[in-house]
């Protein structure tokens, strides 16, 4: 009997001080297995995601959409699915797409997005007429403040070094006020908040956002008065992908849906984390009970 108790206590001790690397293995498996199985679930769009979708969907063909790549490779797994799905949606609607970055790392991601999505999937889109890559400019919120009144003061050339005056789709654009919608992809500084503060509010320009999940709670208060809509983290991406797939099944059924795929991995990983939290607490209280019992026996 005493031996059993000793063995039992040993097990509790071991579980109480379990090596955290075992937890890493469980989380890794919880993420990898659903990804390998390629599962995906339908997502119901929340009002804040639906608002941005409706805004893009209701813009007449030829309207100007500015997409600002305010992120880097460190957050690309979260942000890139949102960029891809909004770009596809915009091109499908025939919008004129202006690409730029207030983050230096955003420029290479702009080029990558054009090469991976825009050129192969929308061959009719012509550079300089239907889309343009304005590239990165330093200056953070100062840059936004300047181009809200005069775009060409900062952008004398596009990302390829072409004179901006020679680009057909820039002839009608004097400032950010000529844009019908600006969508900032990011969440850090400078990002969506700076676009709202320095462009959206003073210039009365509709601003949409697609941000990392970490920054989403800080950005929700700007909706709906100061921001059209927001995609928060991979959940936002999955909701947008699911909705666009529902509305345009013929155009989107063959397109990748990384957001929806990652949401399954998210769900399994969250269940594992919750189980660990419950398990850890149960073990803690059992351990404490045993300790008290032993102390009383002594």
């Amino acid at each position: 009997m005493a031996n059993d108790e000793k063995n039992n206590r040993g097990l509790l001790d071991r579980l109480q001080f379990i090596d955290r690397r075992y937890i890493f293995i469980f989380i890794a498996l919880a993420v990898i297995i659903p990804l390998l199985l390629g599962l995906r679930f339908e997502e119901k769009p929340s009002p804040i995601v639906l608002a941005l979708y409706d805004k893009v969907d209701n813009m007449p063909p030829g309207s100007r959409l500015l997409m600002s790549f305010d992120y880097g490779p460190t957050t690309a797994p979260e942000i890139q699915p949102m960029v891809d799905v909004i770009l596809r949606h915009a091109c499908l609607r025939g919008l004129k797409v202006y690409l730029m970055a207030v983050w230096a790392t955003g420029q290479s991601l702009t080029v990558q997005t054009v090469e991976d999505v825009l050129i192969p999937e929308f061959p009719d889109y012509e550079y300089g007429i239907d889309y343009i890559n304005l590239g990165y400019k330093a200056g953070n919120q100062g840059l936004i403040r300047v181009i809200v009144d005069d775009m060409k003061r900062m952008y004398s050339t596009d990302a390829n070094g072409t004179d901006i005056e020679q680009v057909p789709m820039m002839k009608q654009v004097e400032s950010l006020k000529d844009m019908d919608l600006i969508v900032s992809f990011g969440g850090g500084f400078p990002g969506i908040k700076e676009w709202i503060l320095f462009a959206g509010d003073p210039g009365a320009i509709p601003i949409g956002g697609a941000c990392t999940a970490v920054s989403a709670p800080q950005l929700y208060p700007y909706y709906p008065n100061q921001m059209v809509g927001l995609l928060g983290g991979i959940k936002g991406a999955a909701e947008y992908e699911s909705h666009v797939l529902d509305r345009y099944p013929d155009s989107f059924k063959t397109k990748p849906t990384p957001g929806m795929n990652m949401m399954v991995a998210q769900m399994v990983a969250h269940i594992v984390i919750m189980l660990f939290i419950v398990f850890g607490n149960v073990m803690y209280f059992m351990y404490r009970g045993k300790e008290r019992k032993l102390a009383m026996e002594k």
Partner: protein
Amino acid sequence: MNPKTIKLIIFIVILTSIVLSVYFVSMDRDSIREGIFVTSAAFLTLFIMSFLYKDNPYYKFAEHLFVGVSAAYWMTMGFWGTMMPNLVAKLWPGAVRGVLPALAEKDASYWFVIPLFLGLVLLMRLSPKGGWISRWALAFIVGTTAGLNLIRYLRSDFIAQVNNTIIPLVDKTEAGISFWGSFSNIFVFIGVLCGLIYFFFSKEHKGFFGGAARIGILVLMLTFGAGFGYTVMARISLLAGRMTYLFGDWLGLIN
């Protein structure tokens, strides 16, 4: 086994894996360039993740490489994206004929001598004796940023946010009164009010005031909980992103 021998075996295994990976990925994609890039990204990911087991030289190598490449990338982007078209091309258009021919024929704008001067002055920070001169440029940066931010943050982040909080408690829609809309509006109203009361320290938190402050704490805890939940989601997304790369782009197991 001797630790040095173990380290050597690990090194040989990793090196062999890299060579094999470059070979197979290059064959698969018909491009040696792709093979090298995909393999580099995959192994650097694995090196960084190896820190989860314990600190090791491969992690250190990947970390230092990341810092160096990032610094060089930012400098290059700043030089070619901003310095050349927005400063050099404005002052000496002829000088950029080889790299930005579109700007070479434009008239010079000598106002840009001022940012050039301030930029050079900022570099005086590197001088042991003339370091104080850099404060002029720094003062300009601090002053303009503070001035710019003050107005915008006050109007858009303070006044507009207060305005966003002043909402009707009963949410009336075309279909009638929305229960969840009204619940949300009342929750926002009570949450903001109680949160503010919690941070009001001129009156002791007792009685009704203390009760409101306690609700304020609960609201703050809910906020932190939501923030933490979102952070977990963000981290899992990053892990899923890297796993998609490793098992999809590299190993080809995910379509």
